[in-house]
């Protein structure tokens, strides 16, 4: 009775009984908006803390543990600090673009929340091209980075933005192709359909070789797309000081920072949906008893468990690997990942047509 579906269902029922249908729509939209902003903030705080704790654990140190119990309030304190900091705009900057860029980053991150299924029947917008929508919207991110880099009137920022432009545009191809593999298997772009097609086993288990290959490529490509180490060339603090956000301070910087973490969450959620069944519990074929036991774990736990596992993976990369060079980065994409992806999608199509997957 405490499942998220239940709560939303009852709320909807109650609203429909009290108000006319137009008002219900308006109120529900408002609630959704507030919920997204709330989730945005909460995720930012949780992920920043998680990153710092994971980093500390990998680096044999303790990490934040003073503010609040186990340092849980550390990121809240950091946010407070950033809020009261002066948001400076360099005198030579293009002021409109400079101030607008972080909002684009944030808007993109928020828009991406729409088609993510957080639990069973718990989704903001179940549109029939959900996966395509995520790919399309996430590529707007690069505009905000280019804007920030260009408007800053700083050579480091410009170089960071240029690197990032080249990088995101390139890696979008591989990410898109690996997403397509699963679309071919499940035969739908709809997020709910994709998840439902994994009721008897996740695609990573059912999809044989093509699914494994595309999973690996997907993880590499999204790490690059979100500008995370070892592909953090856009920021590359030892080369470009801070890359595209060198000139940003205060809350404007914080928005970029939060948007990065939300993007990590989104891509990991997408990875979980496509390859690990989203909110779908761990099912094995027709083992009714086993599947039934698994169903007792709430679907939201399954979803967040898988997503945070993937986030942990990406954080692990960051604190382990050195950074690539720009030419190596582009070589990796155009000479290795893209051809492999293309071959892989052929293979996946063949398997899907012949019905060889489970």
């Amino acid at each position, binding site marked *: 009775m405490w499942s998220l579906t239940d709560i939303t269902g009852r709320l909807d029922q109650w609203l429909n009984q009290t108000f006319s249908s137009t008002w219900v729509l308006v109120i529900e939209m408002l609630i959704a908006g507030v919920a997204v902003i709330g989730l945005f903030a909460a995720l930012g705080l949780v992920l920043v803390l998680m990153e710092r704790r994971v*980093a500390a654990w*990998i680096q044999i140190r303790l990490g934040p543990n003073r503010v609040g119990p186990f340092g849980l309030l550390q990121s809240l304190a950091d946010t407070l600090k950033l809020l009261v900091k002066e948001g400076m705009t360099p005198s030579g900057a293009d002021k409109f673009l400079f101030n607008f860029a972080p909002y684009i980053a944030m808007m993109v991150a928020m828009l991406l929340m729409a088609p993510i299924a957080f639990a069973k029947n718990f989704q903001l917008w179940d549109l029939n091209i959900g996966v395509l929508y995520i790919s399309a919207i996430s590529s707007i991110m690069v505009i905000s980075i280019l804007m920030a880099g260009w408007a800053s009137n700083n050579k480091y920022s410009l170089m960071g933005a240029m690197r990032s432009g080249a990088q995101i545009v390139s890696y979008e191809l591989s990410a898109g192709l690996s997403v397509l593999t699963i679309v071919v298997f499940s035969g739908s772009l709809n997020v709910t359909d994709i998840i439902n097609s994994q009721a008897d086993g996740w695609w990573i288990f059912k999809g044989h070789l093509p699914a494994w290959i595309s999973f690996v490529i997907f993880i590499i490509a999204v790490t690059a797309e979100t500008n995370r*180490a070892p592909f953090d060339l856009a920021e590359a*603090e*030892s*080369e470009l000081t801070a890359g595209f956000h060198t000139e940003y301070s205060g809350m404007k910087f914080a928005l970029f920072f939060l948007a990065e973490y939300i993007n990590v969450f989104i891509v990991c959620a997408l990875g979980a949906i496509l390859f690990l069944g989203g909110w779908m519990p761990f099912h094995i074929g027709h083992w009714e008893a086993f599947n039934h036991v698994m169903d007792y774990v709430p679907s939201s736990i399954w979803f967040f468990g898988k997503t945070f596992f993937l986030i942990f993976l990406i954080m692990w990369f960051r604190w382990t690997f*050195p*950074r690539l060079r*720009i*030419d190596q980065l582009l070589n990796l994409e155009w000479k290795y990942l893209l051809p492999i992806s293309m071959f892989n999608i052929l293979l996946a199509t063949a398997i899907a047509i012949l019905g060889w997957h489970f």
Partner: protein
Amino acid sequence: MFEEIGTTSNGDLQINVGPQHPATHGVLHLVLTLNGETIKKVEPHLGYIHRSIEKMCESLSYRQFIYVTSRMDYLSAHMNNHACALCVEKGMQIEVPERAQVIRVIMDELTRIASHELWWGAMAMDIGAFTPFFHSFREREKINEIMEETCGARLTMNYYVPGGLMADLHPDFQKKVKEFIIQFKQRIDEYDQLVTGNIIFQNRMKGVGILSKEDAVSYGCTGPTARGSGLSSDIRKLYPYAVYGKVEFEEILETGCDSFARYMVRIREMKQSIRIIEQLIDQIPEGDFQAKTKAVLKLPKGEFYTRVETARGELGVYIVSEGATTPYRIKFRSPGFSNLSALDSMARGSKLGDLVAMMGTLDLVIPDIDR
């Protein structure tokens, strides 16, 4: 020094790296001329931390000036002190007791390990890996503790005086060093697993920052920078001082001439340092730790030059004496200065990211360059 920089007449981008930049580890200021990401020219601008130690030393007595030199290459403070002490001892013809010489060598090698540890962490950080820094500082901390017990300081030790040492060893010294050796031998394999074998790391380092042997000689490169180019330049072997002539160790030479060769030289050098310490730690002779010297030192009229191998290369101390209590002119031939001069020829044609890796493998310490 603050001339307007922007784009050159043929459209190349000029960019300031430093004096405040995460990769320069201090206040080095490089003006880069870039064509896209490709480096066309590197121009160092120095002096942000210049304290004119040479001029300062002209008004300090022969006992005092050694303490200033700890602040040159602060990561090999012991070796700087050693070079100065040796030079004064050479001028005064002071016979240093065997005990002091052995302790000096052990301390030098511990310092070398500590310095290379820091370099390892900082260089990994330069190319984007954060974790090694913390791992290397775990071991460096052990050395710092050992130093602190005996010398009373962790960075600028000031432990050597003309004629020997400032004080005798701490009673726990030998025990702690032995513990450190056992621990360190395991850790250094861990370093290899964490960084050396990493495919991204190897791709970033191999074939990057080529410094040919001829260039290394011509630019006066010394230390691991030169030995990475196959140029034999280890002062400990070529002109042995203290008890280096009596211990067994290899001079590490790599012929790769690239960043990876310089990296491997330092990693292997740490193992050799451990080997030297192992030979000496149980053989510290009993006796005085300081020779009897006069209260006021006066070097005879003449010129004296000594050189030692610091963690960065050959440090030369050139004292011109007029027979007074203070040196007439003193010159420190610092290894970093010459190594830096090779950076331009190494970096031309490579990418911006590689410059950072090259500066990492040159192991630049800015106070050592600026003095």
